């Protein structure tokens, strides 16, 4: 077969490629060091974001959102500790959000559009107490549980006009954070004794269910497990 110009060029480029690139076999693995690991950050029981007045508001409000029944209330479950940790950390500072301009009112479908959550909480609590003072000459903690429920309902429906922040945005954020504290892993400060997991029958941070694939929906009654361990019954 006569060598065409095209074949010659193709061959030449292939040759250049194959001499420039040498086949290499890589062996080994991801870096590994004995006794080293990257454990989850464990909450600090002393972490404080709220002032005592703010903390009193938060404690009263979360226990209206999740009151005690057969299972512990939000405060008993450590939700306030969870919120103190979250708001004094990266979440409270809004580190996970783009926080620069332009500032326009976003659509609800655009997700969280407010200021850093720490500022939102602080401003909202102050505004709520200002509103309640002007309307009823009481702060939130002075209200009866029923009155507190009524006010929280009003907030959730967007019917409480706050001076600096959007009341519904605050309520939605606060309600979501409360649930995260109540149902999240105890490593973050809430869900003490994995009470909510026991309530749901959620097994926690286990990672292999092959044994139970053919369990046909029967109840497994697993002891829940945290990502940080804590397996000793007496330590609970």
């Amino acid at each position: 077969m006569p060598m065409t110009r095209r074949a010659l060029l193709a061959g030449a480029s292939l040759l250049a490629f194959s001499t420039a690139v040498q086949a290499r076999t890589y062996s080994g693995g991801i870096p590994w060091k004995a006794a080293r690991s990257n454990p989850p950050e464990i909450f600090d029981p002393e972490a404080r974001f709220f002032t005592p007045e703010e903390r009193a508001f938060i404690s009263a409000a979360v226990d209206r959102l999740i009151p005690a029944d057969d299972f512990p209330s939000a405060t008993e479950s450590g939700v306030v500790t969870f919120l103190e940790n979250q708001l004094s950390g990266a979440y409270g500072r809004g580190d996970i959000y783009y926080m620069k301009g332009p500032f326009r009112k976003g659509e609800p479908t655009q997700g969280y559009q407010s200021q850093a959550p720490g500022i939102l909480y602080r401003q909202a609590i102050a505004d709520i107490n200002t509103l309640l003072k002007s309307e009823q000459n009481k702060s939130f903690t002075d209200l009866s549980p029923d009155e507190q429920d009524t006010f929280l309902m009003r907030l959730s429906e967007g019917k409480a006009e706050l001076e600096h922040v959007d009341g519904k945005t605050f309520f939605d954020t606060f309600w979501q954070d409360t649930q995260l504290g109540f149902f999240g892993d105890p490593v973050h400060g809430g869900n003490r004794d994995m009470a909510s997991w026991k309530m749901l029958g959620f097994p926690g941070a286990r990672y292999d269910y092959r044994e139970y694939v053919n369990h046909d929906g029967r109840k497994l009654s697993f002891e829940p497990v945290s990502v940080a361990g804590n397996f000793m019954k007496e330590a609970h």
Partner: protein
Amino acid sequence: MIHPNFPKAAIVAALTALPILPAHAVAQDKNTYSTIERGLYLTRAGDCAACHTSDPEKPYAGNYPLATPFGTIHSSNLTPDDATGLGKWTADDFYKAMNEGKRPDGSGLYPAFPYTHFTLVTREDSEAIFAYLKTLEPVSQKVEKPGFPFPLNERVVMKGWNALNFDDRKFTPVDGKSAEWNRGYYLAEGLGHCAMCHSPKNMLGAEENGAAAYTGGMAEGWFAPPLKAHGNAPGLSDWSKKDVSDYLKYGRNEQTAAFGPMADVISKSTRYLSDPDLEALAAYLTDLPNTQEKDNTKTGSTQEAASSDTGKLVYDTQCAACHGAQGEGVKLQFAKLAGSNIVQSDNPTTLLRVILEGTKAVPTAKYPTPHAMPAFNWKLKNDEVVAVANYVRNAFGNSAPAVSSSDVEKLRQGS
């Protein structure tokens, strides 16, 4: 047949055809390619690099600090440097070191150098190793003096030690055993010096022989498990020859994967061995004289451990995903714990270190990406480590004495 790669083919033939090469078979120029290549092979078989290569940039230049119960000793420079290495040594000097543990001036070497094993190495093999070492780049590397206390710092005490612990043996094939077995015997007892780690040591740091040989020993802070049934540990009694040769060649077999110091041995030494030599080692090591039957009687406390709620909870949630709900592991991937030698060893050091620190398998040609087990030191409290260790030691048909919280604490302090 004319073979284009004659020298290599000759080596392969030399290595595979005869279990032990008689003297006349290698009566050739000691500097031929084949002798040097054979020397490299034997140097690897002896895992010389483990102690004599401290800096990978300076192979065999020594000065590797080896911690012993008596103090730290630094390995010799094996490169042919006149002032600091073997440059002025003769093949006779080298053979005397290998065979008698003596330096050219007659003073004794310390037995951190396994001359107690290398005494079995044939003159021919010793000369091939020496011929190979002579081809290395000379490296000027001073070696620190042994940090032994008086009187051990006087080399003359080695005379007494040798009188008690050194037997200047010659290799003689054992009658009634196959040529393969005898080749395995020569490699394991000689260059391979397996017993340096896998046998217990007496108060003088010498290996125990006889019934105690290969019943496991401490090495570099790890417990090298028994190679024959001892206490509750099965040794290699339930490993096939293929299990042994695969383990030494690939760092992995159907039972487990190598880690810790044995991973280094495989990486620097045994993975280079020829298949016939690996099979010979397997033939010998699976035929170590068993001095006892596996003890399956459980004491009350260990029975309790097997049903411990905490132990089972930790195992089911943390270990079972890889090691299997019934300790069955995943073949060629994750170690089987049921029937495991290390899990059931009387000395729990290695098991506990693995739980606390995690481990990493060794990359080999067949398995280039090794698995790693994560450390649990941050997650499990001492009592939880104890509970899960006792659980795996006594569940799945296993049995072994209970470990204690102080065993765990000691290792935590050490790591």
